[in-house]
């Protein structure tokens, strides 16, 4: 509850609040009766004798007394409220209520309600969960909430964000691997290879060779020249450019590109490198939800044997 820059403001708020309440009470008490000269004592229906703006007079129509008691009641209520709830500067109130506490309470209730459901899925193998229609529906909603921003609502990814519906995986497509990816996140780095490859011409040649690996449109002469320079890339991408899922190096021999398959994009990748992060969701979502989510993602590219056809 350290909200104030100095202790002064704490006192400031308390004094203002207390003065306000006391002031209201004094005003009410002082205004509930008027003194008038004996001779001008008004009767009901006449005016109180006060005149404003030359001709604005106040009718003497007394309010019922319960109305006054209601005013006092509001004052007593505010005093009681400030005792039990926060309001007086730093004073937390005897109930110890906090909005965060209310949120925590809501989370606790939600966990008590949905926890058993997720725990039931936790006990099952990921592939079994993938085959469960209810888990699939939950997984889809979780995906649309937490994953769709990057991977798209249809999970087909965007530039720089992998497509999750194909069979091409940077780190491996086994359900457990997917779960690990979601739990711990991934960090895929390709350093700039411009220096290792050589001149701009060399980079152009290597890029053409990379395109030749997947039999995409390329210049065969340049590709032949670049083949020798590809040695610098083999450490990660392997001899045939097949990639390495252990370190998240993409397969260069298929037609699936994370950043696009044009010659310019590949040259940019070689020159500048790439740095890609998938955040970790384990702590944020908790393992049970990730479990359901991983099963859902895996089912996007694998027809679970006994899953109901969508």
């Amino acid at each position, binding site marked *: 509850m350290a909200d104030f820059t100095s202790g002064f403001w704490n006192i400031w708020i308390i004094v203002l609040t207390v003065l306000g309440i006391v002031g209201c009470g004094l005003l009410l008490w*002082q205004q509930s009766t008027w*003194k*008038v*000269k004996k001779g001008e004592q008004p009767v*009901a229906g*006449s005016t109180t004798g006060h005149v404003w703006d030359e*001709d604005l007079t106040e009718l003497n129509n007394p309010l019922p*007394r319960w109305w006054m008691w209601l005013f006092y009641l509001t004052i007593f209520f505010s005093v009681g409220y400030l005792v039990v709830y926060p309001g007086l500067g730093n004073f937390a109130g005897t109930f110890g209520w906090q909005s965060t506490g209310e949120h925590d309470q809501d989370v606790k209730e939600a966990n008590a309600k949905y926890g058993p459901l997720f725990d039931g899925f936790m006990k099952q193998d990921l592939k079994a969960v993938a085959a469960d229609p209810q888990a699939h529906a939950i997984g889809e909603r979780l995906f649309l909430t937490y994953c769709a921003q990057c991977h798209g609502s249809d999970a*087909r990814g965007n530039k720089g964000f992998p497509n999750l519906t194909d069979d091409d995986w940077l780190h491996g497509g086994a359900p457990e691997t997917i779960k690990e990816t979601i739990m711990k996140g991934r960090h895929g780095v390709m350093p700039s290879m411009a220096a290792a490859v050589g001149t701009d011409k060399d980079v152009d040649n290597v890029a053409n060779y990379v395109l030749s690996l997947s039999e995409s449109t390329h210049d065969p002469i340049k590709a032949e020249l670049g083949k020798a320079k590809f040695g610098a890339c083999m450490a990660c991408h392997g001899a045939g450019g097949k990639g390495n899922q252990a370190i998240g190096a993409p397969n260069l021999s298929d037609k699936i590109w994370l950043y696009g398959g044009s010659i310019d994009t590949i040259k940019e990748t070689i020159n500048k490198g790439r740095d890609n992060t998938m955040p970790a969701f384990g702590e944020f979502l908790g393992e049970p939800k990730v479990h359901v989510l991983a099963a859902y993602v895996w089912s996007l590219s694998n027809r679970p044997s006994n899953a109901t056809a969508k």
Partner: protein
Amino acid sequence: MEEAVMTPRQDKQGKQDKDAEPAGGSGPRQGKDEYAVIRMYEAREQIYPREIKGRYASLRWLCVFLTQLVFYGMPWINWNGRQAVLFDLAARKFYLFGLVLWPQDFIWLAALLIICAFGLFLFTAVAGRVWCGYACPQTVYTEIFMWIERRIEGARSARMRLDRQPWSFEKLWRKSAKHLAWGALALWTGLSFVGYFSPMRELLPELAAFAFGPWELFWILFYALATYGNAGWMREQVCKYMCPYARFQSAMFDRDSLIITYDGARGEPRMPQAKAARLGAGAPAGDCIDCTLCVQVCPTGIDIREGLQYMCIGCAACVDACDSVMDKIKRPRGLIRYSTENAVEQGLPASAIRRRLLRPRILIYTAILGAVAALFAGSLWVRTPVKLDVIRDRGSMGREVEDGIIENVYRLQIINTDERGHRYRITATGIAGLAVAPADAIDIAATQTLSVPVRVRAPHGAGESGSNKIRFELRDEEDPTLRVSEKAVFIVPRP
């Protein structure tokens, strides 16, 4: 008795010296004996309205029966195997016979409130506070509670006597019986009220076992206490001090609105018949015999003979009372009657009052009320039980897939507000050859909400580079007239 809104200017006030004004409590110290104290809050004077029978009293009782038949009876009517009228707050669905309203249909509540407001404007401009006098729950429940009170404590004079006399066994049992009866009725009213939000037929077994949910119990008691307090204890004070409508209806009157009027020209000078007889013929005796019945029957305790006052709720009890007296003394009815300010001042006949109904204010209110009501009914009539929202994926603008096909991703939020399932076909139009994948038809269960990711594909070369306007349409497979469409944007990446 207090005066109405205006106060007569008093000459002495013009001459008053500001310095002579005693400032409240902090004036110059003077001897105590020179000052008197005005209390700004005073105890309420108990009002004992006398029972009255007559045309308008019968009309009021008719309104009491009609409104309460609806209020107490509605939760018991079933429809399609559920309660006909149920406001299910937990599920956020309002059931009204065949209609199921969702939170998205809130606009109709706004329209309903506009209709209620203009209805009030119109009725008030035409006939003054008829709502207050005949249909307002405060009036209706006060009427019922006073009926109970009369049955147990007796008529006006008996009730006054009972209140004045010291506590005795008779006073104790009468007062206890009255409050018990009031309490029972109030509790039943509270139960009926909660029956609109929580199924009535499930409430009764809960009542038998006294196993209400905490909120159910709270609202039953709250509504019961409000009914008991307002109709039993507060009564006219609700209208005089609390109700905002009572106050701003005064601003909706004009000089041609029907109000309760006392015909002073005919009634004054008022005098008892004996006195008039003593003075003999030719004496200027008015028709008013000063029997004060009109004051005794008034539920707000005013004297209508002093003119229109803000406390008058237009219940016409004084009209009934005066008419019965006029009948007895063989004078024409209508000394106190519904009339207008202009009619009283200018002596207009009833036909003129009717003719003045067609004044601009009334016509405009009627036109607006009619228009809003027609819109309300018409839009409810053509309402489709399916709602569609299109949300574009913001992560990707548009992507090129194999063969130069352009693909955009959308999320369709589909709400089926119907109480049965449907199969809807999804189509997209706006660019030649648009195709929806992976599913171009979806099954949606009764009252289900779905979020369906769809990809829309445009053939290579179709559409403009940049954004294209397209429309999604859902159409029921069995009933092609049941459809809904929503606009969206399809983006073709620049080459």
